[in-house]
C-alpha cells in the first residue's frame, strides 16, 4: 500500500534527487509523517544511503518521523506576531489542546506547531490551520479555532 503511493510520488518527480525534499513533503502531506517504510523505499529506489535521508528528514522543520495530527495548527512566531502577543496565543492553545508546542492531541486531531513567519505580518498575530490563515487574533479567537463547532 505504502509502496504504491510512494512509488507514484517518486515517479511524479522522475526520481530526480533535486526534487527529494518535495517528494518527502508530498509523503508528509499524505501520512502526516514520514513512515520508515517510505524512507527505505526511496533509499533503495534512488540509491541514496538511508542515513542521508534520515539527516534530511530530521534537518527540515517540515518533516516528522512520528505520526502527526489530522490538522496542523501553526502559530506564527515572526517578529511582528511576537510583539503583538504570539507567545500568549501559544500558551493559550497549549492549555486549550492539552499539548505542548510540537505535540499532537490524544485524538490525533491536531498537532500544535510554531512557525517562523507566514508573511502576513500586517495582520499579526496569525494562526494557520492547515493552509488557511487567520489574522488579527487574540487568545479567545485563537481558542475558538480549535474548539468543536457548535451544531447549527
Amino acid at each position: 500500500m505504502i509502496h504504491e503511493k510512494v512509488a507514484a510520488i517518486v515517479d511524479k518527480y522522475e526520481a530526480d534527487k533535486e526534487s527529494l525534499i518535495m517528494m518527502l513533503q508530498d509523503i508528509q502531506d499524505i501520512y502526516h509523517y514520514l513512515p520508515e517504510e517510505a524512507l527505505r523505499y526511496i533509499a533503495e529506489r534512488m540509491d541514496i544511503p538511508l542515513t542521508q535521508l534520515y539527516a534530511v528528514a530530521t534537518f527540515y522543520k517540515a518533516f516528522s518521523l512520528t505520526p502527526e495530527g489530522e490538522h496542523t495548527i501553526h502559530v506564527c512566531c515572526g517578529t511582528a506576531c511576537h510583539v503583538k502577543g504570539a507567545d500568549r496565543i501559544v500558551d493559550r492553545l497549549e492549555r486549550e489542546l492539552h499539548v505542548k508546542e510540537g505535540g499532537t492531541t490524544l485524538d490525533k486531531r491536531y498537532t500544535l506547531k510554531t512557525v517562523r513567519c507566514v508573511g502576513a505580518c500586517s495582520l499579526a498575530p496569525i494562526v494557520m490551520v492547515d493552509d488557511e490563515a487567520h489574522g488579527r487574533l487574540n487568545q479567545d479567537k485563537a481558542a475558538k479555532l480549535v474548539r468543536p463547532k457548535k451544531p447549527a
Partner: protein
Amino acid sequence: MIRKWEDLQEIRKRGERKIRPNKIKITVGTATCGLATGSAEVLKAAREAVEQTGLDAIVAQAGCIGYCQMEPIIDVWIPGFPRIFYSQMTSTKVRQIVEALKKGEHKPEWALGKIISETNIIDESVFNYTSEKVPLEIAKIHHLNDVPFYKKQFKIVLRNCGFINPEDIEEYIGAGGYQTLFKVLTEKHKPQELIETVKKSGLRGRGGGGFPAGRKWETVAKAPGDIKYVICNADEGDPGAYMDRSVLEGDPHSVLEGMILGAYAIGSHHGYIYVRHEYPQAVKKFTKAIEQARELGILGKNIFGSGFEFDMKINRGGGAFVCGESTALMASIEGEVGEPRPKYIHTAESGLWNRPTNLNNVETWANIAPIIARGADWFASIGTESSKGTKVFSLVGKVNNTGLLEVPMGITLREILYELGEGIPEHHRFKAVQTGGPSGGCLIVDTFGWKHREYLGDTAPPAVSYVTESLIDLPVDFDTLTEAGSMMGSGGMIIMDDTSCMVDIGRYFLNFLKEESCGKCTPCREGIRNMLAILNRISAGEGKMEDIDRLVEIAQVLQDASLCALGGSAPNPVLSTIRYFRSEYEEHILHKRCPAGVCKALIHYSIDPLKCTGCTVCVKACPENCITGKKQKPHKIDDARCIKCGSCQEVCKFNAVVIQ
C-alpha cells in the same frame, strides 16, 4: 507560440481588454493577507450578488495593493470612470455595492481612494480612466495617492501587484510585460550590454547583503564552463518581511521575465526558484506562471524564435531559515541537508552542482525588466548615491498603518513612520524600529534611551556618541542602516512601542536562531546557546551586571569565527539593544523590573479599582478563575494563582488591568 512582435502585440491588446474590459469589473484581492481577513467570502458574495442582480459585470481576482491592514480590498472598474478602491469589505458590504451598481449608484462612503490615470513603468504609456463627466459623489472621493499610506510611494517592483490577475499571462503582457525580453532576444542585444546596464544602474541585491547585482552577473558570465545556473531565492525567511511573497502571489511573471533576461546575460539555460513551503499560494501561482510561459514559447527551446533556450524549475523549501543563505540553499536544491559551505569558494564560480551560479532574490529579479526597458540612467536617478532605485518595506508591528510600501531609497524613517505609517497607536510611545530580521538590529529613533538613563540617575555618558542624536531623520539606505548598527536586510520594519521589552526582543531572536542554527560550526551553535542562557537568566530576574559584558564578549567570537552570515550576524539584535537600551538591561538586573511589562517572572497583574466598572468580562475570560468580585464592584486578581496569561487585559474595555 509568440514568434513575431505582432503576436505579442495581439496578446497585449487582449490582455489590456482583460485588465480594463468594456463592462464593469469588480476585482477582489485574494493574496494571503486578503484570505486571512476573509476575502474568499467577499469574492463568493460578489459572484453571487452579480448573478442574483443580473449586473453585467466581471468578478476577478488580483494580488495585494499593499495596504494589507485595510484588507479585504476590492476595486471597481467602470468604463469611463475612475478606478475606485473599497477597503475593509465584508460579504454584506460587497453585496450592497453590487446592488448599488445595478441601480447606477455608488458607495463613496466606503471608498479608500480612486485612481484617475496610470503610467506604465515599462514604456511610459499613460492611461486616463476618466473620459466623460463623472457624478459629483465620485469626483469627491480623494485620490489614492493622497491617502497617507500611498503618498510617497513609487512602484517599480510592485508595479502590477493588485492590478492584474497573477494567474493570467495575457494580463501581464497587457501591462507591458515580456516586451523588454522580446526586444532583447530578437534584436540580438549583446549579453555584455545587459550586464553593463545592470552595473551602471547601481542595482544592489535586495535580499539583505546589498551586493551589486551587475558585478555578480559579470563574474558568473566570465566564469569558465558551459553549464551555468540562475536561481531566484524566494526563501524569504526574515520574520516581519513579506514583499517576496506578495510579488510572487501578485505578479509572478515580473520575476520570471527578470530571470530569463539574467540567464541570457550570463549564458545560462537552467533556472531554479526556491520557495518557502510556508507560502503555498506563491508556489501555486508561480507554477502556473511557468506553465503559461512554456505554452507561449517564453520558456523552453528557441524562445521567441531567437534560438535562446532557458527553462525553470520550482523547488519548495523544507522549512529551514538557514536555507536563505545562498550556499545552504544550493545544498538544499541538491537534495542535501541545508548546511552552508565555506565562502572562500564563490558560488559565482562554483555553486549549484559545482557550476557557476547566479543567485538573486525575488525583489532583485523583479527590478530587472524595468531597468533594461528604461535604461540605467533612469534607475540610477532614483535613490541615493550608494543605493539606487526603490525598496519595498513591510511596515508592521505597533504602528497605525501596516502593509507593504515601495519608496525611493533615501527616504527618512520619520517619513515612513509618521507620514506613511501615521504614527504609533494612541496612548503609546514609540520605542524602536527593528530592521534586517534576526541578522539586523533594533534602532532607537529618538532620545528615549538617554533620557531614561538620566531618569535612573545615571550620569555617565552614553556608550555610543550618537545615541543622543536623533536617528529619525536617518535616510534609509544600505549603508546608513549598517552604520547605525542594524542592516537593511530584506526590508522588514517592525515598529515597537513602550510595551515591547528590548531584553525580550534580544531573547526572541536568539531563541529563533538557536532553533535555526544548522550546528555545523561551533561558534554559532554554542555561542548562541550561551548568549540565550544569559538572556533567559536576565529576564527571569537572576541576571548579574557582568552578564552584559559577557554577552558582548561572546558576540565578538560569533562575529569573528562563524562560518556563515547566520552566525556572524546573530548577535546583532542583542548588541544593538545593549547599545541603545542598556538601561533596560540594567533595570532587569538591578531592580528586577521589566519596564515594558513583558518578562513574565518580573511582572504582576492587578486591577485598578478606580477604572474597573465591575463588568465581569475578565472574570469569564480568566482561564484560572482567579479573578473575584461582585458585579459593578471593583474586581481583584489573586496574584498567587495568576498564570500571567494576559487574557483579562485583552478583554478589558476600560484599561483597568495594569501590569507592574
